[in-house]
């Protein structure tokens, strides 16, 4: 089990925890449960966690599946620099965010989930992982394509030039009418 990137799972878990905090918070605020101000806090914490966790980190090797439209959030999260890059900070942040929500029954589930996510992040941090933005590679293709106006008449793989020369000759031999070249 040497190559597991724990942060990937932590990310999924934290995002789910964010959504659960948010849902629990909305239920408690909408129902005006006793102590609903904890729920109002949970909504804010849930939104924050979701925003922070939405953009996936680039994997160490191989390609990463991006979440739909994550590039805008990636840019924002990247701006915060070491605060978001370091998983120790993220683990501590999640643990701290989780605590106040633990005082209300509706948001306890969110607390537990976020706590677990924090634990997995800690494990990821210990193993030297960190958040790296997925950057759009500058596309080379359109540049090359831009200069080509016509589709190639002889699509690849093309015979090399010497082989190409031979073909008209073959055609010429079979032609009963002699063809004058220029």
């Amino acid at each position: 089990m040497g190559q597991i990137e724990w942060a990937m799972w932590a990310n999924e878990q934290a995002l789910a925890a964010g959504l659960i905090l948010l849902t629990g918070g909305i239920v408690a605020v909408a129902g005006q449960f006793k102590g609903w101000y904890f729920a109002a806090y949970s909504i804010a914490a849930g939104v924050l966690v979701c925003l922070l966790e939405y953009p996936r980190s680039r994997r160490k090797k191989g390609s990463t599946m991006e979440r739909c439209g994550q590039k805008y959030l990636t840019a924002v999260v990247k701006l915060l620099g070491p605060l978001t890059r370091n998983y120790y900070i993220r683990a501590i942040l999640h643990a701290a965010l989780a605590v106040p929500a633990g005082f209300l029954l509706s948001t306890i589930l969110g607390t537990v989930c976020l706590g677990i996510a924090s634990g997995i992040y800690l494990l990821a941090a210990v193993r030297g992982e960190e958040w790296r933005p997925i950057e759009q590679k500058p596309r080379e293709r359109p540049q090359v394509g831009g200069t080509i106006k016509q589709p190639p008449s002889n699509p690849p793989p093309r015979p090399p030039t010497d082989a190409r020369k031979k073909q008209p000759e073959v055609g010429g031999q079979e032609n009963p009418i002699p063809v004058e070249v220029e």
Partner: protein
Amino acid sequence: RMGCWILNEKLSVLLLLVWLGLNLYLFIDTFHWYEDDNAYIYTRIMLGSTLAWARASATCLNFNCMLILLPVCRNLISFLKGASIYCGGALRRQLDKNITFHKMVAYGIALNATVHIIAHLINIERYHSSQSKEAGELRNKLSGLGKSPNESYLNPIRTYETNTAGEVLTTIAGITGVVITVALILIMTSSTELIRRSCYEVFWYTHHLFVVFFTGLIIHGMGQLVRGQTPQSLLLHNVTYCKDHYWEWENATQCPLPQFSGNKPVAWKWVLSPMVLYICERTVRFWRFQQEVIITKVVTHSSGVLELHMKKHGFKMGAGQYIFLQCPSVSQLEWHPFTLTSAPEEEYFSVHIRVVGDWTAALFKAFGAEEKAFKELWMLPRLAVDGPYGSATTDIFRYQVSVCIAAGIGVTPFASVLKSIWYKCCNPNTVLALQKVYFYWICRDPSAFEWFADLLFHLETKMAEKWKNDFLSYHIFLTGWDESQATHIALHRDDKMDVITGLRQKTCYGRPNWDNEFKQLAENHPSNSIGVFFCGPKALSKILQKTCNSYSSVDPRGVQFHYNKESF
């Protein structure tokens, strides 16, 4: 187009509708029971309609938890496939979609769990607020019941001055509820596509939290927190009259104090039988693990492919099936699936293992494939084999015309099939329904699968000897090449043999145009039902399925493409 799609997918659609219908039926039925039944009038006065919401979603949860284990009992699925041999291909194709079904049921569980939890959160809050002065006299009176020894309580929250979180978490139902929900969430977050693909171990180990989940599920109802009036009490206590005259309780003869009791736990009734089935499943796997496997031959191919020939007592395979391998010296717990590459006609069974991850690399090392020295067979590590398990490709021989499409590594299940075709052709005693096989292989780099090209070459020569050249028509599409390869290919364009594979059939370059290929197939076989078998990535699978449906004739006597997907 829509008509074609329904024709081809009718059984899947039917199954989906049945599942949805049963869920809906159970939900509505339970909902009405808790909304209308007299025993719950007082509970409803306290909780409102969230009582019915919580109970209805609980019934759906039980139903889905019963279903979720069935599609992962692979021995059961394989047995059913064997039993349904005379029921036509549609049912068998359905059994290949077991994991899709498993996921669908899982989504059902997640949705119902959400409804159940939210409804109970509101219930707890209502129980709690019923103890406050503002709740009204009837709710206060109901909450106050149970203070003296001969009374039974309705409200599990006994005082207003309490923290509901602490109160609930000390009950059986509360604590198990939190534990099984967390287990469910962990299982779900670790089984997203990304995690399954990139950290299979995390997915695999976390999924075993299902033990916690099912244990908790059975215990959860034993708390009996939701209470209703007892039948005896209903006979003595005229609810319709008494609920409006609560001040007369105990004094009027028709209104003695109502008695309440908790609902009997029912979850175990739902999940017991699938759990027993699953335990049998695991027992069979364990027993298989104990069986001895003899490794007869180890071949290392170039580009990191290990070929293992094995023998096992009582092992019977079908073409295109797969087995699970476990190597105790590599990992005690991990089982990994591999497609069998030998034909059923051969006296051994074999797999080709390509080094792609940790486990395969460790296995490669354990078999000493990196060392040059010859290793005695008895020195090899022990292997355990579970299987073989059926796969869609077994059905190839059931069609007159079969189209096999493989992408990259997806070619492995077809190795066994092609070999088996060859054996069947040679044997004059077998009557083969299959008359024509089209084989497509889309591949970025065929050098990674040299062993397969070898096999194809072997087959081609043998077929040519037997004058059966038109039986198998294969098309290889190469999608990756570099400049020097291109030159090489072009120079040998007019050769009899293909330069890349050495085969008579020329390799095509670039991706196939499926519209053209299917149009051609439909023209060649205007009134056949054609089995299309695919093994490869999901994106292409979707395209192929669409193409299959759009080229199938609406007329049932016309050409029909039956799409079969191999998942791995």
